[in-house]
């Protein structure tokens, strides 16, 4: 159960991957007359930096999320949760439905995760190994979710580009990674992260994120649906963002162990 909670906490990162800001300036319209001057070509590092800025570019965020896990046989189950995030580090996840209701998880960084367990009435530090567990049987795991900054731990190159997208290729700097490479498809106009593909060391695609339903949430654009799937089995998880607000003035104190256990 603790492991499930941790992965849920890390969902934040996955959701952040789908983020796109309406305030992002639209690319300039080319002048109709003479041939336009060529836009300065962006380096892979610049593309990635713009993408990550979109993902974590708010003072704080609050999301109401529904996760639906689809079995290969078509059966499904859903859980609701609320996620609070401050900057690109602190986040708090509160489970609001199902058998995990009442459980809260505070993620400070990959090595500092605390969970409040209502059944035990205590806060417990979660060991890093627990980050490898899925949430309630979903397709999300810690290594997918804990990627706050790809730039820090991955080598980067531009694999290809087409009319609408950049395809970034990332390979891990550490041999400990479960993945041999990761591909991001980044929208050329908005720098939103559209797809992410994970490959194991045998070169097989093992996980896929697809972000869709670009929606206006109180003036901020965000992909409403993130579908995470295992291309090998067809097992998939859909994350629906039910509500999303930013810059609500969340206090730092909310993201503390003190807050996690107070008044429970």
């Amino acid at each position, binding site marked *: 159960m603790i*492991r*499930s909670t941790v992965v849920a906490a890390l969902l934040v990162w996955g959701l952040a991957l789908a983020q796109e800001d309406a305030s992002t300036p639209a690319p300039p319209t080319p002048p109709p007359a003479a041939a336009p001057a060529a836009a300065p070509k962006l380096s892979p590092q610049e593309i990635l930096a713009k993408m990550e800025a979109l993902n974590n570019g708010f003072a704080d965020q609050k999301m109401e999320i529904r996760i639906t*896990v689809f*079995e290969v046989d078509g059966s499904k*189950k*859903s*859980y609701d949760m609320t996620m609070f995030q401050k900057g690109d580090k602190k986040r708090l996840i509160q489970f609001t*439905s*199902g*058998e995990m*209701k*009442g459980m809260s998880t505070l993620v400070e960084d990959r*090595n*500092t995760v605390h969970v409040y367990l*209502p*059944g*035990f*009435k*205590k806060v*417990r*530090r*979660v*060991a*890093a*190994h*627990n*980050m*490898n*567990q*899925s949430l*309630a*049987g*979903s397709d999300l*795991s810690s290594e997918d979710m804990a990627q706050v900054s790809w730039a820090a731990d991955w080598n980067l190159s531009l694999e290809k580009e087409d009319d609408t997208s950049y395809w970034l290729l990332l390979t891990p700097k550490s041999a400990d990674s479960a993945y041999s490479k990761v591909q991001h498809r980044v929208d050329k106009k908005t720098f939103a992260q559209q797809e992410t593909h994970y490959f194991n060391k045998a070169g097989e695609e093992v996980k896929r994120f697809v972000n869709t339903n670009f929606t206006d949430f109180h003036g901020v654009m965000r992909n409403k649906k993130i579908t995470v799937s295992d291309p090998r089995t067809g*097992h998939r998880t859909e994350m629906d963002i039910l509500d999303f607000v930013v810059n609500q003035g969340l206090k730092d*104190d909310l993201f*503390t*162990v*003190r807050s996690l256990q*107070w*008044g*429970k």
Partner: protein
Amino acid sequence: MLRRVLFALCALFVLLPSAARAEGWLDMISLSGLLETDVRFNVEDYRGPVEGEGYNFAINRNDAILHAEIRPHDSLVAVFDGRLRFYGFNTADDLPGLSRDRNQVDPFSVQVDQAYVATRGLPWSWLDLKAGRMVQTWGSADVFNQVDLLNPHDFYDPMDYVRKVPNQMFEVDVYPADWLTLTAVWIPVFKPALLPPSAPLGFAVETDANGCLSSFPAPPLSVEDNQALADLFASVDPCSLNFATPQVNLYMPKYTFADSQVGARAKFSFETIDFALTYYYGRFPYPIAYNAAAVANPSTTQPGKVNVDYVAEVMYPRMQVAGLDFSYTAPWLFDVGIVGELAVIFPEQVTFGLRAYQGDAKIYEATSVNVPSTPFIKATFGMDYTFTKWLYVNAMYLRGFFDEFNDAYGVHNYVVATAELKFRSDSLKLRLAGILNVDDLSNVANPQLTWVITPGLEALVGAFIFGGKTTPSNTYDYAAREKFGQKAAGRSFAYLKVRFTF
């Protein structure tokens, strides 16, 4: 009285939301809870009070649990945890009982686990206060917390081993820095642990098929003294002895300031490690034998028979406990989670005395130090690891079980292991848990299969199986009884639970 409480609870359910809506308080109130039905079946017939009785229903219970949090503003919360429990077994034993009171046919109880108010950051930002009825858990390990002494366990149901006896207390939390939390707790009145219904069997004599005395539980005396005690009965025809059910009286602390309890904790957090230093002054919450008397008198109704009454007294000795606990993720060891707890206990000495009388004549007397005043250690050390997406393992070593206090039984060593396997997107969970007493090899196993039918609705089927000998290897040695083998530990059962979380 019980009905009135129940009515009040129902009124709370019904009126609170409407009142809240009327006053615009709805956003301040958070309600959650649980409905659970629990049916258990004894799967043996030799561990109960009567040999041959078993293979019957042990529990047929229904619980409704409500958790309410009322937050008028960010710095104030009132918390209520209530439980309405229906026991499921008829207690009426005569015809009038069927018409007198429905509670006898359908008994129930109302329990309040928490009812407290807490402030945060008032009057200073670094200060939190709590007052009222609450349940606290200190320590880093799972369940087996040696430094967790504020609330004793509620072992009425041994399977619900995380449940505790709530108590009224006052708590002050100070946050002088991000990495440091200081806590002080005052508990005015001592409350003892609840024991399983099987606990009195620890004092019961054993009889053979003819109802004749075959053995009696050794009191906490030396083997030689217990041998001498047995010799008194050896000269008597065991079939002539009528042993009454032992009477065990509690010698409770007085309700004085000096008998209140205090706890203090300094909790530190650095990088990948949390650790805490703790102190507790109070009483050991499990009963320790300190006085007993056996009185034999000729039966006035059965010529040739001798009635034997056994009266014992148990107490809750004072203790001071200095503790340390930590939890740590070891990056140098595959990110394994490591937890540890160490409690150094400074106990009040308890001297046990036993006297035997034949009529008014004292025929036997012995005393022994049951609990020496020398400090002793209880400890927990554990590791856990997630091997795969579907396999999690947790293993712990324990020095000292909950109820061990370095009395004549000693402090034993245990290994606790749990493996959790998940299938079908975590909708099926198989948990295999067990405890082994390393010293006497008695054990308890708890396999359990959980089916998440739909989020919030679970069905659990499992078993709680005790292993070990019901009789001690040496009937004269108090320490020779097997921890989980003895009848006092409880009965083996299978169970089915259905639980809905809202």
